[in-house]
Each structure stands twice: as C-alpha cells, then as structure tokens.
C-alpha cells in the first residue's frame, strides 16, 4: 500500500470516528430514545411528518404488534414492486426520456423491481442504455430512499423488542418509515448531492451533449456524446442507503458519478456512515452504550481486515503480467498494481478500500471492476458478503444481522456453562433460537442452491468467461451478491438472460424477506418478556470476550458453509499458475 493509501485509510477512520457518534445519537432521538419522544429539528420536520400522516390517514400514536408491523412492511414492498415494474414497462410513453429508450422486458423489469425494492440494486442492465430519466428518478431513486428506510425501520423494531419489557408492540412501521426518510435520509442526501456536484458529478435533466472530439479524423469518432441526467441526487442516496445501483453502467467508476479523490472519499464515508451510526443508536435505545461498542468492534474489525487484505492483493498485482514486459511496481510516477478494471484516479488503495466498504455493507456499488481483481483480491469481497454482511452491513439489515449472531453467541455460551442464555436481561429460548436459525440458513440456502443449479446447467455455464475456477467464482459471487442484497457483480457474465433475471430475483426476495420476517418475529417474541436481573452467573455481553465470541461464531458459520465452495473457486484460481 502506498504511504498516501495508508493516510487515506487513516483519514477515513478518523472522519468516521468523529461523525458517526453524533449521527447515531441524532438517529436514536429520531427513533424515540428521549423520554418525551422529541428529536432535534422537530420544529422543521414535525409539521412535514404530521402532514404526511394526515394525508395517509395514519394514526401515528397507535403502535403495531410484530405481525402487523410485518404486514405493513410487506404491503409497502409489494406496492413498491408494482409501481417500479409498471414504470419500466411503460417508460417509452412516459416523460423525461431524452434518449428514447424502449420499455423494459417483463423478466428484466421483474428483476429490477425486486432488486430495488429489496435494497439490492443488482443491475443486469446498462443504466445509460436501458433506463429513462423518469425511471431513474421516480422509480429507482425513490426506492433508494424507501427500501433503505424500510430496512432501518425493521432494525429499530427489533431493537425495541430487545429494549422493552412486558410489552406487545414494536412501534409503527409508517411512522418509522416516514421519519427515517424525512429526518435522516433526505437531509443527508441533499447536502451530499450538492457536495458531489461541486466535485463534478453532473445534475441536469437533459440528454447527452454532443462534443466534437479533438482527434476526430484519425479516430473516426465524429461526435462524443457526453451524458446528462440527474446523477448527483441519485448517487448521494445510493451510497447513504446501502443501495449501490449506478446511474451509469460503470457505476462509481464513471467519472460523472465519482470524478476525483474527494468525491470518492465522500462516497466511501456515505456507504459506512449510517450502518455504523445505527449501531451507536442501538446503544442509546437499549440504554447501554457498552453493548453497542461490542457490536461496533466486531463490525469495524472485520471491515478493516478485509479491506487491507484486498488493498494488498491488488497492489501486488496480476502475477501473469510480469512475464509480459509490464511493470506493476509502485513508484513516484505510477501507482502500479493490478490496473485492469481500475481508473488511474482510484488505484489499489482507493479501490480496495471501496471494495471492503461496499461488500461489508449491502451497498454493492463499485469504483473498480471486481471481476478483474486478482483471485485473492476478488475472494475478499466475496467472503465478506458470505459472512452475511455484518461488517458493518447494510442500513438496518446489518445491525439486524449482527444482533442475530449475538443471540446465537449467547446461546452457544449458555450451552457451554449449562444455563439458560440471556441477552440484555431477556431469556433466549427455543422460540427465538428457531427463528435465529431460520434467519441464518436462508441466505446460504439461496446462494449455494442457485449456484449449484446454475453450474449444472450447460446453457448457463456456456455464458461464463471460462469453464474453470474463475467461472465458478463468477457464479458464486453473483448469487452471493443477490442473496445478500448486495448488488455488486463479477460482471463479465451476461446476467440479462431469463435464467439469471428470474433466479436472482428469487434469491434477492429470499435474502430480504426470509431474513426480515424472522427478525421481526424475534422482536415480537422478545418484547413480551420480563427482564431478569443479572447475577454472577450471567454471561456478560458488553466485554471484549463477547466480541471475540460473536466474531468467532460469524467466522465458523460462514467458514463451514462456504469454505468448500471458495476452495474450488478463488483459492484454486489463486494457486493455478
């Protein structure tokens, strides 16, 4: 790693350490941490929120039990799916379509709708060639906000399940959805979008501008179509909300989405800020910041290790190129490293840092192409997704994930000492453990199931770039991405085929709803329980020992589940010369 790369990493850690705690405290207030239920900015946002409740005829004082909360979440996702589907199917006849793109095919539109409603933002298509400005703004940007807000709402409901005692309800989904959108996501996005514009991210409503290239005669490129569109507004929320769906095909490697080192830094910060802040909010909401610090330590620990590994692997470069007269050595005149699929302005340091952030969360945007990573470098983002995205995970869903691993960890600790396990004074019993297990096996089942089905179909494997370890890596990566609602890709594979759009759509649905519904049920089960006072026999969950136990559980589960597959994919590829 270059010295500047080290400083960049350190600067990111420092900026996060300064900004995340106040953001987490603010978010906790938005979710009702204060005794009187007030939050900063009530005078501005209060009237807006109440107006929305009034139009929607929502009784914001009435709370919901877990099953009603889940029903509201499902109904909202269902309606969103239909809306995004319809907009794509009719975009040819809708306004703001300067490049005259056609209606999207039924399978393609199904995949995109599922993808954006589940906060995945998997993109089988090329944004600039397939989607109109109207679809990007009214369909996709909106889902960037509300699918993120819905995930955060569910996390808060689960937290309330842990924090409350002898209660029935987990909050009101509509209130959590609206407050998350108006008070957290919109203000942050607005400021960030303007910040990105100052760096050169475009924001306009017209089609491409025709330029006359300088070397037009010799290159025979008579015009260069410089793209247009409302990019900054979408990029801001795509990073803040763990969405990741790019305006352009090249995603955040495109100069108009991410023009320089500053925009890159802002975007990496935005990917990590809310997932980390929500863990801080958790501490306030359960009344113990030490509990939150333990989870944060696990999240940040994994993220830092994986990112550094990726940076090193990419800086070493592609061993195959050394024999071909190429220098990948780092010097004052070049950053060096594996530059296939990387931009000059984002060498191995900026790129590995991003890869760690985007797959540790469920973001999935990229500033370099993961398919062209070295085998070791590419195994890192894949493995981080396979951990279940808890480092620090997507907005809302990351915290939900690590809380499930924490419950599993106290259960295992309880087995070891022969006591009924407790977490924050709540007894963890058979009902909760069944749901936790359901939560934990859903993602591997979808990932490995569809990956296995794919490699046994000749029609699918023939579309891979090679019928070897790298081909298997592509299949594994792409289903890991879908089943974890990540959205990044080993993008060589033409994933626009009916097989992929359909099976990945199903994998995304499993990865979202088969995790969130059990999570709400866990909340619904815990919320009814009395808190038992801690005794000398209680296993403390706010110590470094517990952090190590949670991390161990995460690694063991992912290792046992995925190591055989990883061994056949990236590990074999790395060892092949």
């Amino acid at each position, binding site marked *: 790693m270059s010295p500047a790369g080290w400083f960049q990493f350190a600067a990111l850690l420092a900026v996060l350490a300064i900004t995340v705690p106040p953001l987490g405290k603010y978010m906790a207030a938005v979710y009702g941490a204060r005794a009187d239920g007030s939050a900063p900015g009530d005078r501005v946002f209060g009237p807006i929120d109440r107006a929305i409740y009034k139009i929607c005829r929502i009784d914001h004082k009435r709370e919901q039990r877990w099953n009603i909360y889940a029903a509201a979440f*499902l109904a909202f996702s269902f309606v969103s799916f239909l809306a995004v589907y319809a907009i794509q199917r009719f975009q040819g006849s809708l306004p703001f379509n300067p490049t005259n793109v056609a209606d999207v095919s039924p399978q393609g539109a199904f995949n995109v709708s599922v993808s954006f409603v589940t906060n995945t933002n998997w993109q089988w298509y090329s944004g600039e060639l397939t989607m109109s400005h109207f679809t990007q703004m009214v369909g996709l940007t909106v889902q960037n906000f509300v699918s993120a807000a819905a995930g955060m709402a569910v996390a808060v409901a689960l937290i309330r399940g842990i924090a409350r005692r002898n209660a029935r309800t987990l909050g009101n989904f509509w209130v959590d959805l609206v407050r998350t959108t108006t008070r957290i996501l919109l203000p942050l996005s607005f400021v960030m979008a303007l910040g990105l514009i100052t760096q050169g991210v475009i924001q306009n409503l017209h089609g491409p*501008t025709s330029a006359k290239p300088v070397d037009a005669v010799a290159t025979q490129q008579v015009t260069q179509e410089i793209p247009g569109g409302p990019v900054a507004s979408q990029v801001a929320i795509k990073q803040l909300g763990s969405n990741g769906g790019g305006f352009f095909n090249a995603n955040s490697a495109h100069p108009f989405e991410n023009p320089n080192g500053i925009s890159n830094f802002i975007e990496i910060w935005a990917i990590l800020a809310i997932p980390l802040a929500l863990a801080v909010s958790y501490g306030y909401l359960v009344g113990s910041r030490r509990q939150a610090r333990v989870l944060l330590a696990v999240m940040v620990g994994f993220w830092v290790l994986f990112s550094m590994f990726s940076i090193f692997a990419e800086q070493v470069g592609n061993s195959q190129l050394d024999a071909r007269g*190429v220098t990948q050595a780092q010097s004052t*005149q070049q950053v060096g490293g594996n530059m296939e*699929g990387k931009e000059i302005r984002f060498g191995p340091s900026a790129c590995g840092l991003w890869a760690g952030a985007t797959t540790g969360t469920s973001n999935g945007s990229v500033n370099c192409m993961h398919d062209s990573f070295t085998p070791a470098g590419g195994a890192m983002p894949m493995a981080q997704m396979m951990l279940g995205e808890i480092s620090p995970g997507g907005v809302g869903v990351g915290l939900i994930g690590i809380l499930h691993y924490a419950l599993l960890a106290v259960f295992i600790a309880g087995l070891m000492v022969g006591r009924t396990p407790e977490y924050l004074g709540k007894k963890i019993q058979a009902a909760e453990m069944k749901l936790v297990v359901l939560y934990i096996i859903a993602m591997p089942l979808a990932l490995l199931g569809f990956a296995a089905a794919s490699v046994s179909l000749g029609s699918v494997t023939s579309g891979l770039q090679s019928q070897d370890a790298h081909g298997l890596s592509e299949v594994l990566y792409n289903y890991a991405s879908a089943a974890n609602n990540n959205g990044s890709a080993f993008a060589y594979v033409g994933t626009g085929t009916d097989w992929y759009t359909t099976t990945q759509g199903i994998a995304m649905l499993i990865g979202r709803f088969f995790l969130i519904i059990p999570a709400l049920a866990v909340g619904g089960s815990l919320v009814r329980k009395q808190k038992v006072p801690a005794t000398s026999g209680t296993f403390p969950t706010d110590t470094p020992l517990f952090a190590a136990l949670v991390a161990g559980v995460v690694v063991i589960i992912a290792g046992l589940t995925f190591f055989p597959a990883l061994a056949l994919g990236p590990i074999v590829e790395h060892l092949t010369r």
Partner: protein
Amino acid sequence: MKNFLRQLRPALIALAILTVICGGVYPLVVTAVGQVAFNDEAEGSLIKVDGVVVGSELIGQQFVSPQYFHPRPSAAGAGYDSGASSGSNLGPRNPALLDAVAERVAEYRTENGLSNDVLVPVDAVTASASGLDPHISIANARLQASRVADVRGLDVALVLQMIGDHTDDRNLLVLGDPGVNVLELNLALDRLTS
C-alpha cells in the same frame, strides 16, 4: 392475509407521497441549486474551443494520431464510447486478457520507439473500469513524450514540463491517486503549436 390487505391502502398513499418528495421535489431542488450555484460542474465540466464543445475535463477521449498523447485501452463500446461506459471484466488469468496485454505491450514499444527491455507501465496496456478514464499515469505520459515532441518539433523538456502542468495530484495530498489528464494536455499542445 387480512392484516396485509388492510395495510395496502396506507402503503399506496405513503408510496405516492414519498414518490413526490423523494422522486420529484428532491431531485428537482438539487438540480435547481446545482444549476445555479455550480453550473459548469452540473453540466459536465465541458471544455469549449472557439465556442464548440470538444469534450469534458472528466471524460476520456480517444486519440490515435502520433502528435497526441494516447489514453489507456478502453472497453466502452468500440473504445471511449461515452454512451456505453464499461470495463472489460476479464478475469486475471483469462487468455483473452493476457494475449491483449502482450499485443498492446508490443504496439506501445513500436509506437514510442522503445527497446524490448523497457518495461511498459501497467496502465498503458490495461483497460480502465469505466472505459472513459480521463487519465494516464505519469510514467506512461513520460514514455510518450519524445514521440509527441518529435512529431510536433518541440523540445522534449517542454513537453515533459507540460505533463507536469496537466497532472492532477491527489486531492488534499492523500485522497485518490495522481494522473495526467490526456484531453487537457493534448489541447494545451494544440494551443501551443497552432
């Protein structure tokens, strides 16, 4: 199921109103502020020569003539197609990638009159992520300098100095990585010799 159906009405209205706010008001306000306060950037940092748009500071452009610095290989469409950004997505062991690199190395050496023992900077023979990379490495630019200077009848030292002038350094010393902006450098050369 009854619970689900009962939630459909608030779901529909909530989505409608959030669509107006997040999909209408928000992007339009950002557009309005961006257009007024940072018009150049919001429009794409366009470069005009004699009133004609010739490109963008941020988007790479294809150059093949010997008097110009050449950009990196590109997988965007037929090469630097700014309507179809893309990387090659070729895996690190893919023969297609390795053969292409070997071929580009040979071409690069011939083009710039380099002997076979000169190692070629990696960025000169690999495709960027977007296919629209506006930059090349300083090492790559310096190896092209004598060719450009010869064709244009300029002093190599001057060309090297211009490379330095059009190098975008790291932001705030540590963010991102440095590179030479090819389009701006070539335009500056044209201004000099026209």
